[in-house]
């Protein structure tokens, strides 16, 4: 174990994110996920001052919908990637993909890896529970027969458990939606930029109680890409490097007995000490956090499990204004999946990079040096992952 820890410390700040790229976000891209992937990758490479000829690694995560590295490589004339990863999974593995790319670079397997996610989550492959084939998984048989099939239902179930145990209220969920919309109003990329009030939130139609419309993220068409390379090489590129200070993987909850079974505690609680330890930092050092917000509730539970407030106090913490721009811990400064758009985790990392480079415009957190960016915290699919990034 000591050996592992020592090697992890050697990993600290060895790699960097040197470029980010986006397609526009929308409800109907009109193009394939392959096209979206190529566009985001070209934008990210341009941001870094690189071309596809510099790329020797490709990685994505997907649930059967994004373009595979085996397709994107030939499409962009990258014919002999030294490393690639086609990771099955949803938001819970989003940060693991970048972490694995960083490991590949640190190990010398590849020098420049592009991580991307392309998604037509509105026009083609909706995750909200309509018109989608159920995944092939043994767990489905204990859910689908009861009409319990979609993420809004599953996260609403966990959210209610938190409400029952800790007194978390609809107004707390609503405050997250309101705060993130205010951030999105300052983000030209964001899909939803009109400010909302708590009353607007409370007037929203029910989706699956206790969730209303504005508890749910935006099913989005779009793509986002990140260029991962060595810290050394990143310093010679076009943009200020953002260092990967720590990366961690963790477990989660499942229907299977024998594992964690408190629905109000996520795998982030066990992961956080490893992550902070690797970076040599603690929650108080985090200047800005991009917390996976497929639904409002997931922000509240992560604020607790990543150590920003005591267990059960995520709701009051948000209500205090702590997570707004100008507060001690701005969260989801781009508007998050709730208001910017949903690129399955990758746009959180891209926003963290933007904040640390100081190019986040009107939503810039002054002097941001350390960012936490997190994956879905391990509900539904028992896996999670997270990154701590630092200004280079």
């Amino acid at each position, binding site marked *: 174990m000591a050996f592992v820890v020592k090697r992890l410390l050697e990993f600290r700040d060895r790699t960097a994110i040197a470029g980010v790229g986006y397609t526009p976000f929308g409800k109907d891209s009109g193009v394939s996920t392959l096209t979206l992937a190529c566009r985001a990758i070209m934008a990210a490479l341009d941001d870094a001052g690189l071309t596809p000829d510099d790329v020797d690694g490709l990685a994505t995560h997907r649930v059967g919908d994004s373009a595979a590295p085996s397709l994107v490589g030939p499409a962009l004339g990258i014919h002999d990637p030294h490393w690639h990863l086609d990771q099955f999974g949803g938001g819970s593995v989003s940060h693991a993909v970048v972490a694995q790319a960083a490991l590949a670079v640190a190990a010398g397997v590849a020098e420049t890896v592009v991580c991307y996610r392309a998604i037509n989550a509105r026009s083609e492959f909706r995750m909200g529970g309509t018109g989608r084939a159920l995944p092939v998984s043994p767990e489905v048989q204990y859910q689908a027969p*009861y009409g319990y099939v979609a993420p*809004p239902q599953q996260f609403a179930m966990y959210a209610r458990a938190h409400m029952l145990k800790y007194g978390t209220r609809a107004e707390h969920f609503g405050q997250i939606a309101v705060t993130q919309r205010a951030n999105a109003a300052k983000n030209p990329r964001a899909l939803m930029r009109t400010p909302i009030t708590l009353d607007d939130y409370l007037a929203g139609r029910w989706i699956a109680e206790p969730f209303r419309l504005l508890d749910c993220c935006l099913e989005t068409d779009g793509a986002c890409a990140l260029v991962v390379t060595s810290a050394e090489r990143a310093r010679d590129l076009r943009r200020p490097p953002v260092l990967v200070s720590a990366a961690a993987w963790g477990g989660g909850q499942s229907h299977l007995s024998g594992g964690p079974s408190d629905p109000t505690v996520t795998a982030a609680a066990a992961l956080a000490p490893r992550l902070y330890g690797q970076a040599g930092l603690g929650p108080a050092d985090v200047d800005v956090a991009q917390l996976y917000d497929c639904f409002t509730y997931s922000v509240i539970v992560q604020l607790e499990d990543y150590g920003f407030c005591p267990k059960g106090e995520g709701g009051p913490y948000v209500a205090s204004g702590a997570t707004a721009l100008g507060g001690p811990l701005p969260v989801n400064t781009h508007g998050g999946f709730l208001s910017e758009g949903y690129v399955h985790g990758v746009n959180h990392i891209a926003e963290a990079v933007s904040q640390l480079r100081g190019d986040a415009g009107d939503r810039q957190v002054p002097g941001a040096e350390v960012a936490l960016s997190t994956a879905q915290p391990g509900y539904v699919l028992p896996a999670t992952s997270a990154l701590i990034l630092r200004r280079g």
Partner: protein
Amino acid sequence: MSDPPAGAWRPDRDSAPWWERTGREEFAVQRCDSCGTARLPARAFCPACRTEGWHWEAAEPAGTVESWIVNRRAFAPGFAVPSVVVMVRPDAVPDCLLPGSWHAAREPVGGERVRGVFVPVRDGPTLVGWEPVVR
């Protein structure tokens, strides 16, 4: 409740005997032959002692309400709206959280005691739903 959409789900090779038992209105758990730990849903290995030997054991279909949702839109075809899905912590396997249908005119209450009800389904295994002990 309505029938689930055909072909949307099916027992697997581990779980088929469990669903056979629900068809006889039996709520069964697997009991590890080595360490005695009960487990659910069905699978080959005991997560506590990592051995394969086990036997089926009929258990009381009883538990407590951990959470619930009220579906306000149709997430799957054939299901009524609004409808409650409840998450129950079974007494027999208290580290398992099972979703199921809710069989009462009112909504659940957090932590309340519930008992299982067996719900036959056309062309499929009998499901396990839950009703309040105190109606």
